[in-house]
């Protein structure tokens, strides 16, 4: 494996009686690639306004798209993924605006299944409102990306203070905006 941190993380995950110190979720993977400050806030339980329209829209799209094709599974009480009838893992997103973070989230699920449980699957990234799909597969280069993401996440979460404020294109639509900039 590419780093000791990622290796230790995988080892801890494989032993159910040994919880890893940081329980990485798909959302954390996404945040890591969107904004590390957001990831840090989230890791500290800093709450956001769950009533915003963006969240409601995302939840609605997730809850109403391809419902009869996919089944949800919860792994280790925190990794929630949808399996299609074909056996592929599906991740549904409201928009492809943050494509790379969404891709990394799905790759993380595939990596998790393969590394921790020895189950090999392919993934499908779906944007129902855009009628767009993308097939995602694990290979040596994507595995490396997931593992460096895991290392990165562990390092960000370990910081005593949040990463510095930095204006990004998507700050205006971020749920943490009011906390971040105030």
């Amino acid at each position, binding site marked *: 494996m590419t780093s000791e941190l990622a290796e230790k993380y995988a080892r801890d995950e494989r032993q159910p009686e040994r919880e890893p110190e940081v329980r990485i979720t798909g959302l954390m993977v996404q945040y890591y690639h969107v904004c590390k400050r957001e990831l840090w806030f989230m890791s*500290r*339980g*800093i*709450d956001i*306004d*769950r*009533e*915003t*329209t963006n969240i409601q829209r995302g939840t609605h799209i997730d809850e109403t798209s391809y419902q009869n094709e996919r089944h949800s599974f919860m792994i280790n009480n925190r990794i929630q993924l949808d399996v299609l009838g074909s056996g592929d893992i599906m991740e549904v997103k409201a928009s492809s605006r943050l494509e790379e973070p969404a891709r990394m989230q799905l790759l993380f699920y595939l990596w998790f299944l393969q590394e921790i449980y020895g189950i090999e699957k392919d993934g499908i990234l779906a944007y129902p409102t855009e009628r767009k799909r993308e097939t995602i597969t694990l290979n040596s280069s994507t595995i490396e990306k997931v593992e460096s993401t895991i290392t990165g996440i562990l390092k960000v979460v370990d910081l005593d*203070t*949040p990463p510095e404020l930095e204006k990004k294109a998507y700050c*205006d639509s971020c749920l943490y*905006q*009011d*906390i*971040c*900039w*105030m």
Partner: protein
Amino acid sequence: MTKPNHHIFADGELSRNEGTLRIDTLDGETEYLPIESIDTLYLHGQIDFNTRALGLLNEHNVPLHIFGWKDYYRGSYLPKRGQVSGNTVVEQVRAYDNLDRRLQIGQTIIEASIHNMRANLRYYNDRQGNFSTELEDLEELKNSAAGTTDINELRSVEGRARKTYYGCFDRILRSPFTLTQRKYNPPTNEANAVISFLNGMVYTTSVSAIRKTALDPTVGFVHEPGERRFTLSLDIADIFKPILADRLLFRLVNRKQLSIDDFEEELEGCLLDEKGRMTVLEEFEETLDKTIDHPRLNRKVSFKTLVQTDVYSLKKHVLTDEPYHATERWW
């Protein structure tokens, strides 16, 4: 995006009708309130309600503030916390328990509070009177707040500032309104009655805002946690009273929206009558919805959101040590 508050003045019964709130008034009228469109619910009349109605408020995270006879604040029913974070509470108490950190937060609150008092006086300076002496005194008090070494000293600076500030009210208020002296429990004259009523509204607005975070409302920084009320809400309310309450009082009185007839004399006290309370509340709600450009957020925010972001800022400070920006009027 903030939702409006709802005020119920009628007497009657509040119940749940499937997913909607239903109000049956004693006058025989029935009204339905879509729960999704309520930020906070206020009861001003004599209302019966049951656990099923509270359950609906609970499910939709709607706080309920209850006012009793003559609109004295009676208390709040707060929905079960959606946001729990042991981490936040631990850090909040740590900040409270560390004299330096507590004092620093307290100073930020009082400095903002004095700043906002000054902003009101500046507006009325030369319009209704000359307040240059008081403006200077307040400036000095604001500066001395930063140099205080304990909370008692800070509180006495705050007390002196408020006294200086209230001392200007008689020159701002159109006669026959006078404040003479700030008195509450019960308020002794008309201006005191409006201030008490509006301060109560600012307080409940702060309670609602704090509820949207995982901060514990009982642990304040300027006020001692031993007091009966939510002391953190009292702290936050101090920042916003000049902005949301006092300025509104001046406007209502000077534009003659309120007259001496809108009050009732009670035993040793003076209170707004029902028509007066309606007038004040309508304007208060309008003020909450008013928007201004926010330089840090780069968008327009309502005054109500401003209270919320102030609490967010405090919460972030407690958790991360990034600076707390208590709201100082910039517009």
